[in-house]
């Protein structure tokens, strides 16, 4: 059983996508939730925090389920950027 360098590189790329990309994805979606959910700010922040780890797990699954490593990266980055942008537009909630 020989494994090509190309295959190994693709796996490595997915691992990085899962660990780092997944973390960025989870954080940015959680931040969007914490700013967008119409609850007192402490409750929406906690909602984001509680869901953050579920989101992270989903992102890891996605990173290894996507057909190609590029898609794994692409999907995570696009959603992260979109959520981050919307969260930035909403701005920090006032107490």
């Amino acid at each position, binding site marked *: *059983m020989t494994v090509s360098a190309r295959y190994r590189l693709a796996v490595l790329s997915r691992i990085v996508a899962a660990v780092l990309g997944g973390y960025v994805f*989870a*954080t940015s979606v*959680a*931040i969007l939730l*914490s*700013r967008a959910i119409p*609850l*007192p*700010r*402490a*409750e*929406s*922040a*906690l*909602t*984001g*925090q*509680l869901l*953050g*780890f*579920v989101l*992270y*797990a989903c992102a*890891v*699954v996605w990173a*290894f*389920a996507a057909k190609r490593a590029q898609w794994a990266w692409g999907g995570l980055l696009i959603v992260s950027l979109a959520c981050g942008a919307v*969260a930035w537009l909403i701005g*920090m*909630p006032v*107490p």
Partner: protein
Amino acid sequence: MKDAFRQSMSWLHTWTGVVVGAVLFFIFLTGTISYFDAEIDRWMQPERPLHAARGSVEDSLALAVRRLEKVAPHAGEWEIELPAARGTGLSIAYEDTEEQLDAITGEPVHYRSTGGGEALYRMHYQLHYLAPRIACWIVGICAMFMFVSLVTGVIIHKRIFRDFFTFRPGKGQRSWLDAHNTLGIIALPFHLMITYSGLIFFAQTYMPLVMTASYGSGEGSQQTFFDELYGRQPRTLPAGETAPLRPFRQILEQVALHWNPQDARYVRIQYPGDANARILLGRAPTEPSGSVERLLFDGVSGQLLMAEQPTRSAVGATRDVLFGLHRGNFAGPVLRGLYFLSGLMGTAMIATGMVMWARRRNADHASAGTTSTGVGVVERLNVATIAGLPIAIAAYFWANRIIPAALDARAQWEINSLFIAWALMLLHAHVRPRSRIWLEQLTIAAVLYLLLPVLNAFTTQRHLGVTLLEGEWALAAIDLMFLAVGLAFAGTAIKVHRTMQSAGRAGTTLDDSSFAEVRTS
């Protein structure tokens, strides 16, 4: 397409498990044991009276305050832990000092200093010898691996319901897989709850930016977040003027309007002797969300300032319930036993997963006619973890009985003994022939656990002969548990020995399929 998905999830499941299996095994085993931390505390201090005397809450508080006024009149905060159902005694804490008091006379008692169940409890999330922050991150990363492993484990399952009832012993790799599946599925809600809530405990450390996005990163922002969440008033500062503390009788009368004052579990007194003194009373939880039922009083006027309620917001309640479920402080003896059992199943699930990986790799190499040093290292590491860690924990209990009671830093030496024993097992697993290490370490474990009650009988007056006759079930149960664990290890060792003999006769290589039963028993 569907098969490809399942395959990649299977890969993910295997590797998330293999990479951090040993650390997860450590976390699960020490965490599981610490569901009986109070009982272990008592076992490790055999000088304590057999039947713990308990005064009323009012008397206990008076004794504790008298002692605190004498030894720490100027401390910023006093903490009093009241005697409770699981045999914990009266104790006080101020600054960095902790003292156990006699529940009747209020004088400090001199039991041997010990790590107790508390040290095992701390280890399961702080490890040991490491800076808390670093340990916290290591545990968090491993917990996240565990979480992903659980999720993918469910995904790759084709027939969750049928596997619940499937166990085919004595069939090599198949038995291992059955055991792994059954252990995983039976306690799956527990595994998911304990892993997820474990992450949430330190959510603020692991994902700090979520809170920061709403509160900024300035000083005190985290405090503001929790104050708002729990409807707490911001902390008062000391006034700088002296004023006498209100007698507890009047405060307990007000407590009675909310719950039975005899249920009080701990009392925290902030700024004692100051005009802004605050008294916080906490109740022993009777349900998962109950750990936050606290009452805050003005320590001078005795006025009730705040009554914390268990449910405020849905999301706040979710957090409280997750924490309450993880700690299990609300659980009575039966539920506590179930917690212990579920934890053991989680530990065994991790162990079977680790063994399965090494076996499959071995089989792959055998059929390809190759050898791999990597698999060998993992196999040795598996033995040193699955059999070696229980040996190390046994060494911890042995050290408690052997180290002289008066030795300096003896509590630390108990813990050192644990890690020294573990290091020795790691060494043993690497220098002995690979075919013999399981048998040898299982035998060591059996001997150590079976002899613990004997050692206890020779060194203390709290052995089975006394505890069974006196009906002191909590202490007796610990000795009996040692015997049961010892017998389980002995049984496994015998089975491994037989398998080795028959394999030797048949001239084939060792097939260690007999371990399947061990980890399920």
